[in-house]
């Protein structure tokens, strides 16, 4: 099969620049071709289909071409992905549907407070590079549990690490497949559940045959699509409005205009002081504790998420692993520092061209989204002028112009609708959809691979059958990949709701379960097996308890664990009246829906459950420290291994039989 000789493979690496250059040129030519087709009158729906199927076909072709029958190719792409390209692949691995579609919407709604996510999802790479990533590369693991098992004496540590990995990655991948379904159903008009499984086929085609090797080369292709798709609309918008094609510089003017307009809206009665959240004012959606808590949990979570850490196992050297982290953040930065521009441009459009307008004169771009129920005016979907007028007439004393409190927009719409707001041709909308799909697929690929690798390598090969032949190991890996993927898709099809919260949970779980043991394992030779296992269980246990209890058993939390209502960040008042809620017949209900009055709204110290890592990780550090000191010092041999991990030169500590 595709077992390359080393000569052919170094040719392959040398030609990467030309290959991906040609690919990028081809993609741009494809966009131009579709733009021409649009001009000659090809219907939008066909253009949308062409976009999605062309890009999916490219990913699938790369996936099939890079199939492999070699263990080290399957698990770590042969450890020869150059720093620059690994950075791009990590960028795609990292940026998910939540970043691509959701982030700008969150910034639109929350203003300054939304920047907690921007900061949290970038700064964590400092920890990856300084504390963990390069050392794991030197160690030579295939998976994160591999490291835990070696450093902390065997299969108990391995098992705990696998449980942490599966818990956080599965939560995360479900959110991604959910996102794929939303995009596919919106742009292709497919049924949501069907769209979920269609997206799944795309993911499997990329990941199944070639493992890490295939995922790496498709993720690079996906990064190129997603970054072009994300930047094109706002670059055009910035050039149109301010004459400079750098939206990151010009949106300051938009923010100034928003601030001025906010004052004007208050003065003219278009907004109430209670309903208006000034865009640049901090801490009105999150209390300072929760704001900085989100930043810390997302940053530390970054450095603990196995699907990110394992990307740095694929570089040719420790030096390149470090450079690769820097490139990763650079490529991620390109999207994240543009997201606030989306939010600002959209908000200015809404504040100036919708709010304050006569009901019969609002801009028609919103009706397409109104039909889907994603934009509401006066409490009803804004499907047409007649619908808006009828809905607002029903409100007593309505002045006949749109007020701020009349207007509700779903956060997912911000990025997807920007091309229409700017009056751009449909081809740009199709491009954005293809970009969103690339973002969701690439992240789902990486996550599924992380889960399936842990199950096939750590559980099957290391624990069940250490003598399994190569073919058998790869077959098991592929079958498990399909099973996990189908399971995740089935979970996603039940619409567990709120992508951002689910992604946040995944980060906190990874932080509480992995971070203390990884850092102590590398930086403190005295950390022992018992200490690490106890610390992982304690930290992860506390985090998952807090999460599950506040979300699914809020009544139990209040009654037995002294939880109280979270507070409104602006007013400081409780979100729910606990006394009244506890008196309701459903107060003690288990596994309630989000509609339950107390679900996600109770906790300790006014701490949002997204931040459960803030409880778990310190406990994990403390337990590892105390239990290790009570335990016997690790063997001289183990301490020598730790020294070995700290020196980039020389062979990897763990040598895998291939």
């Amino acid at each position, binding site marked *: 099969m595709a077992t390359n000789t080393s000569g052919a493979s170094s040719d392959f690496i040398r030609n990467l620049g030309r290959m991906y250059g040609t690919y990028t040129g081809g993609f741009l030519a494809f966009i131009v071709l579709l733009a021409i087709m649009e001009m000659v009158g090809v219907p939008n729906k066909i253009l949308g289909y062409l976009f999605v199927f062309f890009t999916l076909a490219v990913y699938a072709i790369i996936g099939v071409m890079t199939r492999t029958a070699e263990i080290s190719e399957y698990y770590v792409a042969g450890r020869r992905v150059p720093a620059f390209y690994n950075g791009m692949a990590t960028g795609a691995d990292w940026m998910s549907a939540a970043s691509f579609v959701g982030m700008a919407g969150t910034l639109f709604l929350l203003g300054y407070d939304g920047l907690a996510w921007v900061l949290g999802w970038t700064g964590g790479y400092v*920890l990856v590079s300084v504390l963990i990533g390069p050392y794991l590369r030197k160690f030579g693991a295939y998976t994160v549990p591999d490291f835990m098992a070696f450093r902390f004496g065997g299969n108990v540590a391995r098992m705990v690490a696998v449980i942490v990995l599966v818990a956080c990655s599965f939560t995360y991948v479900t959110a991604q497949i959910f996102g794929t379904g939303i995009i596919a159903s919106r742009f292709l008009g497919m049924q949501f559940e069907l769209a979920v499984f269609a997206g799944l086929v795309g993911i499997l085609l990329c990941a199944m045959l070639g493992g890490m090797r295939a995922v790496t080369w498709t993720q690079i292709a996906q990064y190129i699509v997603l970054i072009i798709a994300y930047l094109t609309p706002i670059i055009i918008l910035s050039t149109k409005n301010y004459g400079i094609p750098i939206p990151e510089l010009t949106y*300051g*003017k938009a923010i100034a205009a928003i601030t001025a307009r906010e004052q004007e809206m208050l003065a003219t009665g278009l907004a109430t002081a209670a309903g208006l959240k000034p865009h640049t004012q901090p801490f009105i959606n999150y209390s300072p504790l929760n704001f900085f808590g989100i930043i810390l949990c997302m940053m530390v979570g970054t450095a603990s998420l196995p699907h990110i850490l394992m990307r740095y196992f694929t570089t040719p050297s420790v030096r390149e692993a470090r450079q690769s982290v820097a490139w990763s953040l650079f490529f991620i*930065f390109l999207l994240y520092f543009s997201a606030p521009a989306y939010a600002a441009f959209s908000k200015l459009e809404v504040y100036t061209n919708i709010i304050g307008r006569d009901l019969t004169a609002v801009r028609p771009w919103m009706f397409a989204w109104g039909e889907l129920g994603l934009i509401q005016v006066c409490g009803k979907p804004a499907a047409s002028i007649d619908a808006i007028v009828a809905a607002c007439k029903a409100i007593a004393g309505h002045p006949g112009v749109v007020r701020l409190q009349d207007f509700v927009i779903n956060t997912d719409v911000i990025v997807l609708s920007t091309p229409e707001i700017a009056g751009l041709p449909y081809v740009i909308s199709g491009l954005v959809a293809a970009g969103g799909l690339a973002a969701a697929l690439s992240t789902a690929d990486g996550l599924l691979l992380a889960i399936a690798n842990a199950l096939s390598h750590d559980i099957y090969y290391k624990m069940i059958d250490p003598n399994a032949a190569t073919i058998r190991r790869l077959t098991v890996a592929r079958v498990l990949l399909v099973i996990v993927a189908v399971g995740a898709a089935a979970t996603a099809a039940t619409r567990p709701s709120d992508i951002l919260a689910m992604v946040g949970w995944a980060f906190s779980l990874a932080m509480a379960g992995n971070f203390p043991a990884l850092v102590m394992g590398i930086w403190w030779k005295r950390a022992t097996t018992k200490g690490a296992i106890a610390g992982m269980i304690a930290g992860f246990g506390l985090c998952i308890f807090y999460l599950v209890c506040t979300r699914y058993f809020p009544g139990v939390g209040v009654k037995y664990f002294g939880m109280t209502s979270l507070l409104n960040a602006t007013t400081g008042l409780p979100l729910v009246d606990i006394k009244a809620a506890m008196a309701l017949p459903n107060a003690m209900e288990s596994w309630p829906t989000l509609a339950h009055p107390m679900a996600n709204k109770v906790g300790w110290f006014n701490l949002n459950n997204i931040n459960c890592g803030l409880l778990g990780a310190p406990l994990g550090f403390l337990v590892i420290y105390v239990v290790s000191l009570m335990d016997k010092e690790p063997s001289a041999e183990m301490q020598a291994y730790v020294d070995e991990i700290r*020196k980039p030169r020389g062979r990897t500590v763990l040598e895998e039989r291939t």
Partner: protein
Amino acid sequence: MTRPDSKENQEEHWSKTTRLMFTHLGVWIFFGYVIHMFVVPLNKIVIPILDFPLGFYMAAQGSLIVFVVMLFVFARQQDEIDREHGYAEED
């Protein structure tokens, strides 16, 4: 520059590495957290020409730029330490 893999060399390498780690974590804490605690006073300053309030700008772009630059600098500095002590990989 290659030095023998003695215990002293190893310890010196590690203490330099540790110092570098704390330096970068210090910068990280400052730009990740400390500076954003002063967002309210910083927002009173408006960046000329671009019109950004400074506190907002730091969270939206400033800190991010620092992180990116910091990582490239860190990769170089750590490599220098490794080379100086003979622990760097062959080029």
